[in-house]
């Protein structure tokens, strides 16, 4: 055991400090935000003249920049969570898991299911009202009303999404476990192309199952009413009211993702289990020769990765009503995030998630679109190309990963 501790890779912390350096370096140089703001300031008047005052406020102001940074952090937290799970699986099992977006979607549908279960109702005929065909109206009364009374029942239904978190963790770990033991373990020794095909196929199967039960239409599942509305940052920082407002739930999402990311890192860094897993990531064979059943531990990691994706999905439900396709929408993006961050690098995945989230947000500002039409559609891929050209292993990729 002692031997392992000493020879353990410090991969987890090393790249983090590297990330700090990158961020500090960009900050010193003015950072992307300032570059954008200056260039837009220069361009804006000319533009306004071009289109005869059509864009009355195309100047980029400080509050807009802060707003888009908030936006980017929020978008980035979803990317980071999904990419983190993806990298965990890749780093431990060496499997490129294209079903990871589907796991995110499954998490969202756990929340949908929980809120459906909580609102399970029985029909009570109300003779005083009629339905659209003129028959007596059948009113749905949730069973929760019968058990806890109407106000307590409403409160429970209102908090369906946070309640789903508790339900989602065991379900997602179980789904991850079944996926790994049932299907993916048979593909460890196969080429990456086979793994991609089988996991992609699995993703489609999972989508179709969800569509069969829930339909293709998105299903609204709101956040608890305590979290509706927006927080006015501007007032807190001395801007005008309404200048920088941000929805409470999106802030909750951001802090939630920080908490989950922190928990995963802490688990890997500070527990014996995490230490063995890290050792296994560095040299699977040696750890196996030491008499440790590393496969079992990797299966657990798969379960954890599935739970991380699932939790990201659960919490995402109030932001956008989930449909069966939402996993695919995130899948491609999260792969770009992983590649930009560096294959197999956990801190890289997190950093790249936030970085791309922020860049995507800036690219969708109208001043930026006016300057570079279409930039909002391609920014992510543009960044990916530039990073891969200049740093072929991604931001924090290490030599030897995915390069046999």
């Amino acid at each position, binding site marked *: 055991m002692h031997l392992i501790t000493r020879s353990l890779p410090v991969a987890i912390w090393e790249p983090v400090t590297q990330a700090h350096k990158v961020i500090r370096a960009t900050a010193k140089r003015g950072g992307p935000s300032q570059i954008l703001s200056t260039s837009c300031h220069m361009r804006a008047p000319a533009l306004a003249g071009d289109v005869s005052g059509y864009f009355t406020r195309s100047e980029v102001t400080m509050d807009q920049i802060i*707003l888009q940074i908030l936006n980017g952090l929020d978008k980035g937290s979803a990317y980071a969570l999904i990419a983190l799970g993806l990298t965990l699986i890749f780093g431990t099992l060496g499997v490129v898991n294209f079903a990871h977006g589907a796991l995110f979607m499954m998490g969202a549908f756990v929340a949908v299911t929980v809120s459906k279960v909580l609102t399970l109702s029985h029909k009570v005929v109300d003779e005083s009202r009629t339905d*659209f065909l003129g028959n007596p109206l059948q009113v749905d009364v949730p069973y929760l009303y019968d058990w806890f009374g109407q106000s307590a029942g409403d409160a429970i239904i209102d908090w369906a999404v946070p309640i789903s978190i508790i339900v989602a963790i065991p379900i997602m770990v179980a789904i991850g476990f079944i996926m790994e033991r049932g299907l993916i373990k048979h593909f460890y020794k196969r080429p990456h192309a086979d793994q991609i095909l089988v996991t992609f196929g699995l993703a489609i199967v999972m989508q179709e199952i969800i*569509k069969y039960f829930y*339909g293709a239409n998105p299903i*609204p599942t709101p956040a608890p009413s305590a979290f509706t*509305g927006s927080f006015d940052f501007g007032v807190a920082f001395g801007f005008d009211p309404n200048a920088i407002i941000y*929805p409470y739930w999106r802030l909750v999402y951001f802090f939630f993702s920080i908490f989950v990311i922190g928990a995963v890192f802490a688990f890997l860094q500070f527990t014996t289990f995490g230490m063995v897993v890290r050792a296994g990531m560095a040299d699977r064979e040696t750890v196996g020769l030491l008499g440790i059943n590393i496969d079992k531990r990797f299966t657990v990691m798969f379960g954890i990765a599935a739970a991380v994706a699932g939790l990201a999905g659960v919490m995402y439900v109030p932001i*956008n009503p989930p449909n069966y396709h939402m996993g695919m929408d995130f899948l491609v993006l999260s792969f770009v995030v992983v590649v930009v961050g560096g294959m197999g690098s956990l801190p890289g995945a997190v950093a790249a998630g936030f970085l791309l989230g922020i860049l995507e947000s800036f690219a969708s500002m109208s001043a930026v679109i006016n300057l570079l039409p279409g930039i909002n559609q391609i920014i992510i891929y543009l960044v990916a190309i530039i990073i891969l050209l200049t740093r072929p292993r991604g931001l924090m990729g290490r030599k030897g990963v995915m390069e046999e």
Partner: protein
Amino acid sequence: MTNSNFSRRRVLKTGAIASAGLALPTYLRADGHTGFTNAPGDSEVTLGFNVPQTGPYADEGADELRAYELAVEHLNGGGDGGMLSTFSSKVLDGTGILGREVKYVTGDTQTKSDAARASARSMIEKDGAIMITGGSSSGVAVAVQALCQEAGIIFMAGLTHSNDTTGKDRRANGFRHFFNSYMSGAALAPVLAANYGTDRKAYHLTADYNWGYTTEEAVKSSTEALGWETVNAVKTPLTQTDFSSYIAPVLNSGADVLVLNHYGGNMVNSLTNAVQFGLREAQANGQNFEIIVPLYSRLMAKGAGANVKGIFGSTNWHWSLQDEGSKAFVQSFGTKYGFPPSQAAHTTYVQTLLYADAVTRANSFNPCAVVEALEDYEFDGLGNGKTLYRGADHQCFKDVLVVKGKENPENEFDLLEIVEVTPVEQVTYAPDHPQFAGGDLGTCNPGA
């Protein structure tokens, strides 16, 4: 040495037999229904229902299919007859179309133009469909309409709202009962002015494709004509799922109205995001901030849930209408399926009846005869009041509904309430109106 000792006489003889043989099937079929693609036999006629059965609009497609099945049932004399009894034309008597039993085949458009064309082609070539109808997107409608024009088949468009379907991409073989972007703008603007005043600054978010452009243009020009100002119009990628970065700057942009030229999943997400950002409670320029969704559908309202409350939009038809036609249709559909029909179901049901009626009046399945029977045809009793199928562009002209998200819905279908029925005169335009310019119907094509 050669074996080819064809004499002139022998060539003539063989030729005569061969041509007689070739002519035989045509001769046997010659009962006034020849000379066009897929002429039906004496007992059956096949219609092709091309709707999205997979993909994001699968639920809408399923509702269209329910309506088609209901229409077929009614045409064949089953059920309670639905709108056949309220339709101003009385030639349909429940004996199918021209005495032929109506059969149908279905195709899956997947809401993709190429898939929709492939399934339409297969229904025409393999199943012998005499008419293609359906669809849940303008891109698909335009693509399938062009295919039907080439194949010599009538296309009765389903849910398609872009101006181009009966504008620059209009075709002689294609007909649209559904309303369009221009009509939405023309119907909405006066209601918006009455409710929100004429001193408004609008910010548009527009889906980056054909329908988005025509809707943005229509709403922009109608509202600007009433004194509104357009502060900004931003195109959003069709694949966008999180609109926060587009919506966040809106409140501080100087605008006090947000117009979401989005449909389907785009609309569900952008509206949800806009409400999340507190735009509904916000104040701008001393007025309440407002959100507008030019085209509503029930499925979208359902997907956006409580977020639609109090938000104005337009729709082609709504089940709460109290005219005889609508009541008959809701009764018939509701009894069979247990919930009220959507506007997609309504337009597809009506299109099927209109086709059957046109064939019956023309006494021929020949597409050119059908086109002639539909052009400038006036009818009533199909749920939208007096309606004209204009000959110049094959667009239906009828009243348009302005609706609002209901504050206290009683059930999951009771999401929209009708604010105003805009009379047809107010939404009528010239066939060569700038928003529709550049199109040419061409001539009808009966095919082979």
